């Protein structure tokens, strides 16, 4: 087991709570709106962006230029956000299916990320790059915590003020549009927050795993409730619990923090699927429909 100072422990737990809350709350949108593929692509874009940011940062340091900005984070966000907003127009212009574009971008971003990392001096790869890829207890900075706290607060504010719009869009986009809701604007807001959450969570969870913390707690919550309010609240609780439990697991067994959080969230999700009353009801109903179809 690893022992840390109280300050570092508190910072870690606080990071876990914030990343767990923000990721899982956004996860409810992602899962319900079937945006998981877009999310995976965004996470890989964040990795490519962060890698490019680190590369530029290193060249600037070599040239004795200090911009006093967190370039990897800024680049991660830019890549993430541009990917999400370019998907639709790219698919429209090329007349290709969105999933084809997603598959292409997913591979491109991963390849770009590794190319950018390969240009970094070897000493840098072992510390910063690994932190971006897999997350690190030491990678969490106070700026990340402040940013995650602000993002979490904004998510709460947006949910309070625009809950009825988000609910309509999550139920049926076409009907939301028909009743006079600005669906494009609110979808843009969802993608924007997604990009922000991914960007500021990669230092703790890692770019390659952050998306599991977005999807798993929300998917767990969907196994139990029929009311979206309860789904949001339970997803946030599960997200926080997964993160904190994962951090302690990482400390106890000396494992990578991102991987530990994701292992916990996967175990919780699998358990939820097994005991889910909703899933059983759905299967029972589907069985009834199949039997009726077979006899008629």
């Amino acid at each position, binding site marked *: 087991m690893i022992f840390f100072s109280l300050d570092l422990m508190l910072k870690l737990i606080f990071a876990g709570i914030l990343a767990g809350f923000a990721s899982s709350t956004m996860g409810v949108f992602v899962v319900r709106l079937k945006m998981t593929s877009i999310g995976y692509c965004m996470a890989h874009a964040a990795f490519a962006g962060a890698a490019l940011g680190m590369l530029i940062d290193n060249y600037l340091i070599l040239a004795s230029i200090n911009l006093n900005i967190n370039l990897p984070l800024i680049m991660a966000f830019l890549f993430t956000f541009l990917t999400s907003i370019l998907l639709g127009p790219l698919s429209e212009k090329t007349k290709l299916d969105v999933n084809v574009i997603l598959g292409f971008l997913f591979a491109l971003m991963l390849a770009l990320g590794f190319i950018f990392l390969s240009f970094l001096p070897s000493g840098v790869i072992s510390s910063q790059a690994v932190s971006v890829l897999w997350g690190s207890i030491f990678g969490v900075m106070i700026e990340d915590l402040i940013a995650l706290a602000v993002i979490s607060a904004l998510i709460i504010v947006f949910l309070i003020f625009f809950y009825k719009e988000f609910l309509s869009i999550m139920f049926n986009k076409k009907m939301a549009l028909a009743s006079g809701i600005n669906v494009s604007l609110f979808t843009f807001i969802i993608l924007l927050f997604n990009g922000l959450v991914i960007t500021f969570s990669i230092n703790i969870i890692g770019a390659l795993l952050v998306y599991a913390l977005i999807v798993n707690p929300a998917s767990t919550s969907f196994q139990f409730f029929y009311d979206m309010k309860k789904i949001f609240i339970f997803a946030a609780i599960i997200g926080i619990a997964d993160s904190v439990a994962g951090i302690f697991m990482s400390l106890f067994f000396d494992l990578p923090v991102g991987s530990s959080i994701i292992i916990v969230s996967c175990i919780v999700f699998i358990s939820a699927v097994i005991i889910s009353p909703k899933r059983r009801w*759905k299967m029972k109903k589907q069985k009834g429909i199949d039997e009726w179809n077979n006899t008629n």
Partner: protein
Amino acid sequence: MSISPIIFLKNVDSIYEGESRPTIKDINLKIRRGEFVYIIGPNASGKTTLLETINGLVRAIRGQIRVFGLDLKKNSQKIRKNIAYMLQTWDIEPDEPFLVKDIVMMGRSGKLGTFINPRKQDWELVKDCLEIVGMLRHYKKPIGKLSGGEQQKVFLARALAQDADILMLDEPFSNLDTDSRSMVLDILRNYKQRKNATILVVSHFLSDVSFQIDFIDRIVIMQEGRIIMDGSPDEVLQSEEYICLKTNRS
């Protein structure tokens, strides 16, 4: 003095996203406030596209559309807030995570406006609308646990809750038995009288409401994306187009 129509379409062609040819062609239609218009036609004749062209969900590539006297292109969001639209299909899964009360309230989402959360009187209206369609007992139930007919009534309540001046219903009788069809027609009759609302109903055929045909002001027949007949029930029922449609169906 002639009263300007509440819905006005002139030489309209419209096309679905990704399609190369227009689904409806050269549509000319004027509907006045307070009219009940029944739109019939075979499958893929463009009935749903016509409704979705009126509320701007489907893009018009030619012609002019004015609703409430406003140009649809420039005012689509404003116009939609005052048109209640009930879809033909909903694809409700048995584990759908939405409650009946929330779905009915969604009808009011656009009209309430941004930053305004539903107030007590909005929830009271939701209850009233559910009571009108006989679904108040399911107020807190998940929508996926209701039958197809019950879901259809909930979606009608949602349309009523919007309290719009134009009501557009796509196949509202498809999952309903005769008693329920009669009940829905009564509800529409009351709604029209109370608000002097304009009601557009799309259906495959007139048999859905043939027992209450007096209630209909106009019947529009569509075929292959065009309006082939538009007139009063008496005119349409005796027309060659209607007889042909009826013969093809049987």
